[in-house]
């Protein structure tokens, strides 16, 4: 049974890599979904209100950076040691 130990540890490493890749892929998908919904929401809102163009792009980019700054804390706590 002693032979099992290194195999188990290798499997563990592989799982960690898979987890990292999956969570990275998931993060990108969630980011795209959230940003898409944000753009769509802003588009519909601005269609109704007739506000100026600079306000649209300002809100668009502000929303994206606020979203990133909030969520980066969450991801950082779960995968603190990952390289960028």
């Amino acid at each position, binding site marked *: 049974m002693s032979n099992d130990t290194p195999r188990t540890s290798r499997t563990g490493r592989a799982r960690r890599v898979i987890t990292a890749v999956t969570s990275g892929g998931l993060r990108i998908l969630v*980011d*795209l979904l959230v*940003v*898409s919904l*944000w*753009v*769509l929401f*802003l*588009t519909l809102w*601005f*269609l109704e209100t*007739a*506000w*100026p*163009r600079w306000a*649209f*792009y300002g809100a*668009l*980019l502000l929303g*994206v*950076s606020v*979203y*990133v*700054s909030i969520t*980066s804390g969450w991801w950082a706590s779960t995968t603190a040691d990952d390289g*960028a």
Partner: protein
Amino acid sequence: MDRRSFLRTLVSGGYALGMAAWLGVDDFLAADDGEVPVVTALVREDPDDPWSIRERTRTVPAEWYAAVESAFELNQRLARIAFTGYLGSAVVPGDHESGTATVSVGVSGDGHSVSEMVGELAAGIDIKAETIIDVDDIQNGPEHREPRLADAIPDGGVPSGVACETPSSMATLGPALYHPDGQRQFFVTAEHAFMDDHDATDGTLHLPREERDTIELGTVAHFHPAEDVAAVEPTGRVEPTSRIEAPRQPRVRGQFTKFGLADLVARDAELEKVGALSGHTTGKIQGIDAVTCFTDEFCRRGQIRWGGEMDLTDGDSGSVSYHRDPEGEDEDVLIAGFNNARTWWPGQSYVWGVGAYRLTEQHGYHF
């Protein structure tokens, strides 16, 4: 902010901008900045393929658009009412900065009550009532000129601007006219060049040539009296072309829409034409979407008024007015409309004919 957050912001931001552009957000945001998109022309994507016609849009000031649009509506309302003494009216858009438009109304005799009545109809539009003392019929030009005849026929096609003969008179040949139904192409000239009784003629159109025999171009497939256009189905070995017989041999790339013409007026642009008798002339646009009720029992709508009486003479009917395509190649031109008549009275003198957009709206043809 650490490097990862920065990268995420950059990627997400880029994606957001890309998606906004894909959604066409700018189309209406630009309008919100005081500009609106309007279709100004129907233009061929491929100059040699008349069926590749696409709409072209450009943005114009929202205020100007609103003024011109209400002027068009008002003009149509006037034509529908057609009060006593009404001879016609036209829309004259102001320049883009002014954000205004004028409706020029022609009335016969005493026009006081008329201007009051028109004033009640108008909402924020400047009305210019012109009292017209007398209406001259189309008269013969003072000097007799020799018509320009077609030369040898290049590539089996006949350009616009040369003389053509109907059974009863002579007119100018227009550039090829296309109809999307069955992808047909037509020779085109003025309907009034044919005898009033269409059944009495065989409706053939001939092409007299320099030092050669006259050849038959085709027979009339459709008469459009209100637009003063006769569409002639080619039956011979020659085909209509999208070229104009002018020094640079301009190539017809499409046509202006109603708002395209309004935009030309706003930019103080000139129209050109090539008639079989008076040749190549240019002139300012005096009014668009005009209604003229003084030549027949019915009113003609969607007319363009431009130039002066000297820009047209008998035999020039059927020629087209055009302007350089602002976005095309050097030789490309867009058609404004036909030149079929001229009118002059004290204070006014112009050539007029149906706009290409009107022909498209009514019958589906395009250049």
